[in-house]
Structure formats: C-alpha cells, structure tokens
C-alpha cells in the first residue's frame, strides 16, 4: 500500500459525472470548417507556414514557433487553408486572436508519417524533439509545452513522475473515459516519458470515484513498476500542487515549479498524445472532450479534431438552445463562460457544459462577509481568503500580497462554500490584475526616469564643455593679445601680421591637443586592454570603466528622450546621470592609479 498524505481543506461538490460516462467515446464528425488558433499553448504564438489557398494534408504542420518556447500546430484533416484571420478563441475575455481556418476536403488524407517502433534506439533529445514536433502541450489545463516539461534542469534529479488522472472537477470525464478506453496507450506514453526522465517512481493517481478507470489502468500497468494509486475523492485533489502533496507529502515551493522538488506531473491525455507521436508518428490533432449538462440530450465524450467549433460538438450531443442558461468551457469550478459557440476546441479544451438555470443557478446577491471562516477552512493552499477579500476590496494590495495572494490557485473552493455568496475568486483575480498592472507601470516609470536623468546630465555636461571651450578661447585670445603687444614693442616691421598668425596657430594647436587627448585615452584603453590579459587587476578596472561609460550613455539617451517627451522625471534623471558621471570619473581615476602603480613596479 502506497503511503498517502492529505491536503488541507477541499470540498465535495456534486459530481455530475455519470451523465457523460454512460456512452463510450464517440468520434465527432467533420465540421464544415476548422479554426486553429496559433496560440494554444503557454509560450510564444506559432507563426503560419502556409498561405491562404494552400492544400494541406492531415497531420501536416501549418504553423510553428521559430524562436522561444512553443509547439507547432498541425492540420487536423486534409483540405484547403481558407484564411488566416482574427477570430474568437477560447478565453475568459472572449477575445479574438489569430487563427488558421481550414476547409476540409472530406478525404481525410494523411501526410507521410514516420512512426518509430523502438524509441530506445533514438537519443532522448531526438524523442523530445519528436514530441515537440508533434505539437504536444499539456492537455489537462494550462497547456505547457510537454517537451519543455520533460527537460527539467539538469541539476534536478526527478524522483517521481506523476500521471494525473484525478480529474477532480465535477462534470468532466474526458480523462476518466480516456483511461477506460485507452489505458494501454497511456501506459505506453508513460513509459516513454519515464525513459526520458528516469524517475525513481512512476505513479498514476486516480480518484476513487472512477472504479472502471482504476481497473483499466491496473490491467494496463500489470507487471510494470508503475503504481496505480487510488486517492480519496475531494476537490481539488487533481490540482498539481495538491496531487503532489497527496502523493509525496512535499510542497512545491511558492513561486517554484514541481521540478524544483524532483516531481513532474503529466496529464493522462498527454500520455496518449506522446504515445501516438512516437509509435504512430501522429501529431496532436484531436483530443477527447466531454460535452455534458442538462442542456444536451446525449451527453458524452467526443474524440474531437482540434479546431472543431463548440457549436458543432453541441449539435452532436443534442443541444437545446432554449433550455440553457450558461455555457461553460472547462469545469464548473474553474471553467469560464462562453459568449460565442463559434470558438473552437483547442488542445486544452477538456469539457463543455451546457447548463440550465436550475443546474448551475445564478448565485444570490452578495451579502456582507461575516468572517465565518468557512473559506479558510476549505482553502487547499491555507490562505486566509476573507482577509484577501477585504484587502482586495479595499485596494490594499500590499497587504493582499503580504498574505500570499499570488499563491492562490483560483480553485474556487472559497466562493463555493461562502454563505454570503461573495465571488471571492473574482476579487482575487481583480487584485492580481491590478498588482500586475501597477508593477508594469512602475517599471515603465523607472525606465523613463533613468532616461530622463541621463539626458539632463548630458545636456549639463555639454553646457560645461561649451563653457570650457569658450574660456579656453578667451584665454588664448588674451595670450595672443599679450604676445602681440610684446612683439609690437619689438622693432619688427611685419610683427603684427606674424603675431596674428601665431595666435591662430596657437588656437589650432590647442584644438588639436584637445582632440589628441581624447584619442589618447582611447589608444590607452586599447593598449591597456592588451595589457589586462596579463594583469587581471587592470582588466577588471577597465571593464568597470567601460560598464560605467556604457551606463552613462544609455542614461543620457534616456534623459534626452524624457526631455523631448517633457516627462516630469527630468530632474531625477539628471541626478542619476550626474551620479554616473562621478562613477565614470572615479573609475578612470582608479584605472590611472593602478596603471601608474604597475608602471612603477615595472620600472623597479
């Protein structure tokens, strides 16, 4: 018996899972058009590699991420690229984003695939690249690129690989049905991931309300080292942090990732995708999505092509638009409402709930908080939800942050139990958003200030230099005048003309000297750079000076910009530049001193 730990709080909401588990996974029919958002994962959006009008085959790459973290997008069926346009995508805000629109030709012709029968013969890097090329990102929720997750920092030993089959949210049964029907593929995918990560333990965690899935996974993993661990049904046991706590007793450090404590979590759907990417060579172009709720007559799970409009899925499930009150993408605890049924199924779309009013009713109006503390009792992160709520409402964001606002996983447990019907999670989202905005603005203001101060300092310096030149000219003129007078006293006939010429030469000479002095420092810098190869002391000083000079330059340019924009932080920027001028001077002094010292040493 595997040792299990517990997590604090949690709730037991009505499960409502039976509606969608009575039918096997059905293949969804081909819709009239597929809409493929370029960003379905966390990271950089993919860029199209096809043009409108192009003919594509099923499984063909149509967009890829050239730089940064991200995975490609593939054509889920063969057809014609009808366009690349901004269309509504699944997002809480109902926003539009760039999508590739594909009109299926109905033939469903595969492109050429390159399956691998024995992945052991490949490098681990090659398999990881294969997983990336298959466009696989986490299918449980966030959609983090799987290949990145499978490459934890080298200094971190992976002790546990967890396959998350908890599926703790009510209504959703996509993972449950996947485990029931595709247990062998899950096990194969898990084996590949385990081969890449070499963990000490492989665990498949399933909540005890899924006996069929448990049975299927036990059968599939028989005779292997994989443990099928049955955990108590309690929301949010499937939350990554909570599941890790249940299975290992460890906590993911605040602000860290599971790999920091040697744990990697993957979704069961992701395991199927990995298995298909390797053994069949197929990219991720479909997923299992639950369509449920009282608003559909035939709830169940559909093997759905990525890009299928939600409206198409709803029609397949016997959708009655008259009855429904809200349409939810995801589960009833963390999902978000849809405004538009045209949005497509993406790689992370695990559930669509067509809910009627009695099913998920509109909450009563918010009442005052009576500090009953039920939220704190239920919070799995051991936060103080009511205090966070007061501070968020009072816009006292410092205190909210002090009480670890950013550790909130937005699981919705607090709002669920709140007898005063306060939409707590919404207050936290608001506070987080405000804090992020403030931080961004602060950063911008800081940058502007630095730029401004630099410009101010540069202008001051220019003024000083001008003044200096003016004085030098005046001095030269005065000297010339003196000389002229002295020569005039001498009995030379053409003295005046000569004098004038000599004065001019003197000025030119001075100007030349100044220029030479400038060039001299540059030359010296070059020579000392060579010298510094042997003398690390000088090298460091030199570097310091260069850095200080570079900083001064950027600051000056910033200051200039700020002046041009008439920003109100000109003064501060000026001060900063002055400070940097000092710094450069000090660095130069230190450098000359060190050099002299070296020279005297060499002389001795």
């Amino acid at each position, binding site marked *: 018996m595997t040792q299990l730990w517990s997590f604090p709080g949690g709730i037991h*909401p009505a499960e409502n899972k039976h509606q969608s588990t009575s039918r096997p996974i059905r293949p969804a029919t081909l819709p009239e058009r597929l809409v493929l958002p370029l960003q379905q994962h966390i990271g950089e959006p993919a860029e199209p590699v096809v043009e409108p009008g192009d003919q594509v085959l099923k499984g063909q790459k149509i967009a890829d991420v050239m730089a940064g973290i991200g995975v490609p997008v593939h054509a889920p069926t063969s057809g014609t690229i009808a366009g690349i346009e901004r269309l509504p995508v699944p997002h809480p805000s109902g926003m539009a984003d760039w999508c590739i629109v594909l009109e299926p030709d109905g033939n469903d012709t595969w492109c050429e695939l390159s399956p691998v029968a024995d992945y052991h013969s490949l490098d681990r890097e090659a398999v990881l690249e294969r997983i990336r090329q298959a466009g696989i990102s986490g299918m449980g929720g966030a959609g983090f690129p799987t290949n990145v997750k499978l490459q934890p920092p080298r200094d971190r030993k992976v002790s546990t690989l967890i396959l998350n089959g908890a599926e703790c949210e009510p209504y959703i049964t996509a993972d449950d049905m996947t485990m029931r029907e595709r247990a062998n593929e899950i096990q194969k995918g898990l084996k590949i991931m385990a081969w890449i990560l070499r963990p000490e333990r492989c665990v498949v965690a399933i909540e005890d309300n899924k006996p069929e899935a448990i049975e299927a996974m036990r059968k599939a993993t028989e005779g292997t080292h994989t443990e099928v661990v049955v955990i108590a049904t309690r929301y949010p046991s499937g939350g990554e942090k909570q599941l890790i706590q249940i299975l290992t007793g460890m906590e993911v450090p605040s*602000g860290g990732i599971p790999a920091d404590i040697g744990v990697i979590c993957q979704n069961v759907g992701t395991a199927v995708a990995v298995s298909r990417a390797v053994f069949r060579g197929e990219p991720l172009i479909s997923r299992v999505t639950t369509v449920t709720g009282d608003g559909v007559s035939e709830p169940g799970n559909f093997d759905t092509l990525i890009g299928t409009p939600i409206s198409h899925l709803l029609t397949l499930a016997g959708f009655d638009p008259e009855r429904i009150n809200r349409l939810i993408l995801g589960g009833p605890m*963390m999902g978000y409402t849809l405004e538009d049924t045209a949005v497509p199924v993406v790689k992370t779309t695990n559930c669509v709930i067509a809910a009627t009013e009695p099913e998920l009713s509109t909450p009563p109006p918010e009442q005052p*908080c009576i*500090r*009953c503390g039920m939220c704190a009792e239920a919070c799995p992160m051991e936060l*103080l939800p009511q205090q966070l709520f007061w501070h968020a409402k009072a816009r006292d964001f410092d205190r909210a942050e002090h009480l670890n606002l950013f550790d909130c996983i937005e699981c919705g447990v607090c709002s669920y139990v709140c007898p005063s019907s306060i939409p707590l999670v919404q207050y936290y989202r608001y506070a987080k958003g405000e804090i992020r905005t403030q931080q961004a603005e602060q950063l911008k203001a800081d940058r502007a200030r630095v730029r401004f101060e630099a410009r101010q300092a540069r202008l001051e310096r220019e003024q000083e230099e001008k003044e200096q030149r003016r004085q030098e000219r005046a001095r030269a003129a005065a000297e010339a005048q003196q000389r002229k007078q002295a020569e005039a006293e001498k009995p030379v006939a053409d003295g005046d003309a000569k004098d004038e010429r000599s004065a001019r030469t003197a000025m030119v000479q001075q100007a030349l000297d100044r220029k030479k002095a400038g060039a001299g420092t540059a030359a010296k810098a070059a020579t000392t750079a060579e010298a510094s190869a042997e003398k690390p002391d000088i090298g460091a000083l030199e570097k310091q000076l260069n850095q200080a000079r570079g900083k001064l330059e950027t600051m000056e340019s910033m200051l200039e910009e700020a002046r041009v924009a008439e920003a109100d932080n000109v003064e501060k920027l000026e001060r900063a530049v002055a400070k940097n001028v000092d710094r450069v001077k000090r660095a130069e002094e230190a450098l000359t001193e060190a050099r002299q010292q070296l020279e005297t040493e060499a002389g001795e």
Partner: protein
Amino acid sequence: MSLVQQSSPHAHRARSTSQVMLIVMLATLPGLLAQTLFFGWGNLINVVWCVLLALGAEATMLMLRGKPVSFFLKDNTAAVTGLLLGLSLPQFTPWWVSAVAVISAIVLAKQLYGGLGANPFNPAMVGYALVLVAFPVAMTTNWAEAAMLANAPGFGETLNIIFAGQQTAVDAYTMATPLDEYKHKIASHTAQEVLQHPTFGAGVARGWEWVNGAFLLGGLALVALRIITWHIPVSLLAGLALMSLAFGANEDVYTPLSLHLLAGGTMLGAFFIATDPVSAATSHQGKLIYGACIGVLIYTIRSWGNYPDAVAFSVLLMNFAVPFIDHYTPPRTYGHHKPRRGIPGKTG
C-alpha cells in the same frame, strides 16, 4: 439563447448566511428547553421579546441607513443576537432592561459600526455588559431558582412579573445563582457547608447542570455540522479548567471546576457566544489563543473580580485583541517555509 456571463466557480453550496444562523438558532433549542423545564417560562418569554425587539431595532436602523430592509433582515443575524440575549438574561428581567440590552446591542454595537460583519464587538455581549453595569440589582436578583420549581410562577404570572413589574412577587421565586452563592459564602464557610444550600441540589448545580449540558449538546451539533470549529470552545474550556486546576484546587477557598463548567453561562458562552465569527479571531491558531484567553479571563473575573459570572466581559475584552491576534497568527501557506506574520512594512 441568452447566455449568462459569470466568473468561476459556477457551482455553489446551498448554505446561506440565513441558513447558518437558522441552524445556530435551532442548536440553542435543547438549552432553551432545559431552561424552561428547570427555571420556568422566563427565558422563553425573554427570547421571544428580545428577538422581536432585535428585529424591530434592526429594521428601523436599516431604514435609517437606507439599506434594503428585507434583504438584511432575512440573514437572521439580528434574530440570533436577540435570541442569545434572551437566553443569557435572568429569567425575571424587567422588560425595559431587556429592551435596553437588545437595542444597544443592535443599534450601538452592530448598526452604528456598519451593520452585519463590521462590528468589532459581540453585539449581544455589549448589550448584556451594558445592563449588567447599569442595572446591577435587576441583573442579580431576578434569577429564577430551580429549587422552587414546584411552586414556580405560571406563564401568565411570569408575563406579569416581566412586563407589569410585579417585583414584590418575584422574591419568592429567586435566589442567588450557584456561582454567586458559592463565591460569597466560601469566605466564611467550608465547601460542604456552602453546598448545603438548595441552589446546588443533589448534583453540581440544580438545573444549571442540565442547561449547560443541553447547550453543550447543541454546541457539539454545530461543530458536527461544521457551522463552527472546535478551536474556540475547546480552548476556552481548557483555559478555564487549567486556571481552576492551577489556582483553585482547594474547594474551601475557591469555586470548584465542576461549578465553573456547569453552573454559569460557560457552555452557552463557549459554543454560542465566543464563536460569533464576526468578532472572533479567524485562523485556527488565532482561535485557540482567543478562546484560551477568554477561558482564563472568565476564571480570573469569577474568582478575583466583583462579578459572579464573566462571559460577557471576557468575550468583550478579547474582542479588543482580535485584530492583533489576527495579524500574528496567519496559517503557513502551501509552499512557504513559515507564516508571514505581522503587517507589511513592519517587522515580523
């Protein structure tokens, strides 16, 4: 098809504040029943009178403050305040004393601070403490006596005593409470002599032990239903018991522990009054400190203070400390090494 746009979560547990308060009220029924059985109709009449007054005062204040009256009245919190006062006041308390207690509880302690959820002090206890200080005679001479149950006044007579002020008749049915009796007699008598008094009866304290037992039962039901957590009642009783064991083990000098637990307002206070969420500490650790301190204060005031019982004063004193306790007892959040105590910007 018109779609509702709502942020998550979409599912909610169907237990509203008004239901929570209703459950609290139901949980006091065993105690009220025991009070009525052993001490006559007084408490029941007080409860009805106080609840009506509380609702009236709340409605008036809500109207004056321009708040939706029925929306807030339906939360049942005013009714709970009235109920708790009705259960705590002496059985034959004149109607106007109850009225002063209830009205000051609702108007001063609750609505003037901003209404539900905004009061730093337990409203019922503010009302109780006020009348205890303002009308000490009325608050000490009107306790019904379980020993007189055989010839206790009937319903009509009790109404007369409370509302028509037949205070001359009341002396026949009242006596000092067991805590009062013990505290004042023990100075000059032995424990055995003191306990001869009929107010103690054959058990710990005639009638009172049943009332306290019944409130304990109701309180345990609240814990089982997760309306309250065990922290405050347990730490309160533990604080009281530890003080009694540490300082008052000698029964010939100090009131024994059994009387402390079963003779006064201890169980009502521990499970129904100190647990008022609005004015209590919030985290588990905070609740333990808060409850234990109330227990210690109850013992301290009962033993070395002027008042025979001390639940109201102890609760109010600890209400003062709640913001402080809350700042220094946050739980350790998942993924953090230690809790973040104190106030941002300050040390801690």
